[in-house]
């Protein structure tokens, strides 16, 4: 393309990053929120009680089993999820029998109130799951189409990561270099720093994202090499499952799960039970699988204990066997999802995800900053393409965070008995995003940045207030109760709102100084800081503040 390899890769990096940059921004931001999807779900069901302290696992298991015996008779498999750092409520779940014409029945989770032993009636919401599913299931599109779009974008992201490494001239000698300069060099440094410091993460998240749909994307190769049976067999080898007994259709009395739980104490020293799966319940073949919190990235047989629920004997399980390639494959999945991480590591995942999001944003802004001086000289104004990119940048980089806040607003403000309530939460989010995408078309660039940043600040700062007016899970209650899930949400909203307010203030100051310098006739246009730089500073400071929190 260009004279030398590095030059052509530079060209390639620019365009590969630009054409799907906004979808990638959407994927990275919603995916990053996914690291807290359980926490988000709990926040979006404010009817749930605060944490109950000093309750033993045995009591919890008794409560859960009593509820399941009462309400889930005739269902073959029960699951009990114990309260943990991520979700402090006791939950039970089971899969309903499949409706005719469907492969699998619906899986329902019920949150239990420990005092009454009954379920908590909470509002209809998509919760964190719906939000994080958007990053690979693009909500309104059909499954197949979204997987292919996501795959295409991920492939371009992978290319952008690799070409980015190729074109970075001094990756080691400029390792720590960040010059807080204005304009183009400043943006370039921001983009470089954000890319380099989390490079392993960027590569891992992109490559593992592609691996999730390996057989869909590489369907041709799979089809050429395997028939249906072989394909099924191969999948079994890659994703091995623990075997369990089928129902014998002979009713039998199960022992209490809390009693069976004592059996695990010889294997596990700590009381670190994560969840319990029960198969063939109230049958002679009934089995209970106790699973503690993960201690390995893929699978550690020592984390599971299977017990016969009728006799109380520990059943020696055959450990799942992974092939070498399967180990790598599943290892990448675990790294992508970060399920194994504790609270601190989860925050680090979250910030690294934000770094990725900010990297994409800075790359997009870099594109316009680079072309701005040339475009502004044109007699009939900037090109359509330039204006489109600028508009999409404003509408996505600031607009999407506002739209996500609207998702939370919808959760608190939509009428509780509304039909299709959960779906409307998402509709509200996408309608707001659409408005914010169109709005910058009618405003000059700098104005649109400052107005949307101000709006973002207001929206986030007001969220705790709305939470206080509509629920009893506000800071005044959550802090004394030390429920860091509910409290952490309100505090995070305040921090994010503060960052947006800071960015909006910076933009205002810059515009004012620009105007006054124009009036005084001084040619200092190049020195004035573009509003976008302030926006990125706010992103950086957001990460910094969040980091201090953990």
């Amino acid at each position, binding site marked *: 393309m260009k004279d030398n390899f590095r030059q052509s890769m530079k060209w390639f990096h620019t365009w590969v990053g630009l054409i799907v940059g906004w979808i990638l921004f959407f994927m990275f931001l919603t995916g990053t929120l996914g690291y807290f999807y359980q926490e988000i779900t709990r926040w979006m069901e404010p009817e749930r009680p605060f944490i109950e302290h000093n309750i033993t696992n045995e009591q919890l298991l008794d409560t859960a089993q009593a509820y399941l015996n009462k309400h889930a008779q005739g269902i073959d498999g029960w699951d009990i999820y114990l309260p943990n750092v991520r979700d402090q409520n006791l939950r039970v779940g089971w899969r309903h029998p499949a409706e005719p014409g469907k492969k699998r029945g619906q899986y329902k989770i019920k949150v239990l109130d420990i005092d009454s032993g009954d379920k908590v009636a909470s509002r209809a919401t998509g919760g964190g799951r719906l939000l994080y599913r958007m990053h690979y299931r693009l909500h309104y599109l059909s499954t197949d189409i979204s997987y292919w779009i996501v795959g295409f974008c991920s492939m371009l992201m992978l290319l952008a990561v690799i070409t980015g490494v190729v074109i970075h001239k001094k990756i080691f*000698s400029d*390792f*720590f*270099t*960040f*010059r*807080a300069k204005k304009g183009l060099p400043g943006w370039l440094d921001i983009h470089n*720093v954000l890319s*380099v*410091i*989390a490079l*392993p*993460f960027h590569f891992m998240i992109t490559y593992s994202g592609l691996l999730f749909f390996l057989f869909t994307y590489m369907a041709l190769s799979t089809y050429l090499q395997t028939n249906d049976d072989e394909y099924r067999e191969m999948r079994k080898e890659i994703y091995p499952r623990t075997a369990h007994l089928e129902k014998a259709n002979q009713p039998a009395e199960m022992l209490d799960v809390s009693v069976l739980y004592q059996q695990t104490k010889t294997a596990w020293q700590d009381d670190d039970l994560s969840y319990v799966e029960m198969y063939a319940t109230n049958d002679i073949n009934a089995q209970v699988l106790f699973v503690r919190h993960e*201690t*390995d*990235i*893929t699978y550690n047989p020592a984390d599971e204990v299977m017990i016969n629920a009728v006799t109380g004997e520990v059943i020696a399980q055959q450990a799942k066997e992974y092939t070498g390639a399967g180990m790598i494959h599943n*290892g990448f999945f*675990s*790294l992508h999802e970060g399920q*194994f*991480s*504790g609270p*601190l*590591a989860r925050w*680090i*995942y979250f*910030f*690294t995800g934000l*770094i990725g999001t900010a990297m994409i944003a800075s790359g997009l802004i870099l594109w316009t900053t680079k072309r701005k001086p040339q475009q502004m000289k044109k007699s009939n104004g900037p090109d359509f393409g330039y204006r489109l990119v600028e508009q999409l940048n404003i509408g996505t980089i600031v607009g999407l965070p506002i739209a996500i806040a609207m998702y939370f607003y919808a959760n608190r403000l939509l009428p509780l008995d509304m039909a299709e309530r959960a779906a409307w939460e998402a509709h509200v989010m996408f309608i707001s995003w659409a408005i914010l995408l169109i709005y910058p078309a009618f405003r000059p660039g700098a104005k649109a940045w400052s107005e949307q940043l101000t709006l973002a600040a207001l929206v986030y700062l007001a969220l705790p207030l709305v939470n206080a007016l509509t629920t009893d899970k506000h800071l005044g209650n959550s802090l004394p109760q030390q429920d860091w899930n509910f409290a952490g949400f309100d505090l995070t909203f305040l921090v994010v709102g503060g960052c947006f307010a800071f960015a909006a203030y910076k933009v205002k100051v810059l515009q004012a100084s620009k105007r006054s310098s124009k009036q005084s006739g001084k040619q200092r246009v190049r020195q004035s800081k573009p509003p976008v730089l302030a926006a990125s500073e706010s992103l*950086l400071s957001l*990460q*910094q503040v969040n*980091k201090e929190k953990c």
Partner: protein
Amino acid sequence: MLVLTSLCFTAMVLFCLAMTKHREQVIVHEVSILAVHFFRPLAWLLLSFTAYLSVDMYGWSIGPALLFGALTIAILLLTLLLTYRAKIVPKLAIVMSLIAIISIFIS
């Protein structure tokens, strides 16, 4: 995790000190050339120790993942400090490594 992050930070500071342009940012007075030659090997040594520690604490699978997370945070912190508060970097590195050493011995 905090131990890993602070050790990574100290290692990165050593790398930084081995580079002339950053050393001038951080330290006012001259450093003997002999000492400078030791910074980089020392940094690699510390980084290898941190890698060993992460594997020792969290196992072969989770350990390296957390190590990279800690590295990201450490470099981000260092980069921002170099730009805005370069002078406190050596002090902070000493304090952080002390905290790390103490917590290693406690646990």
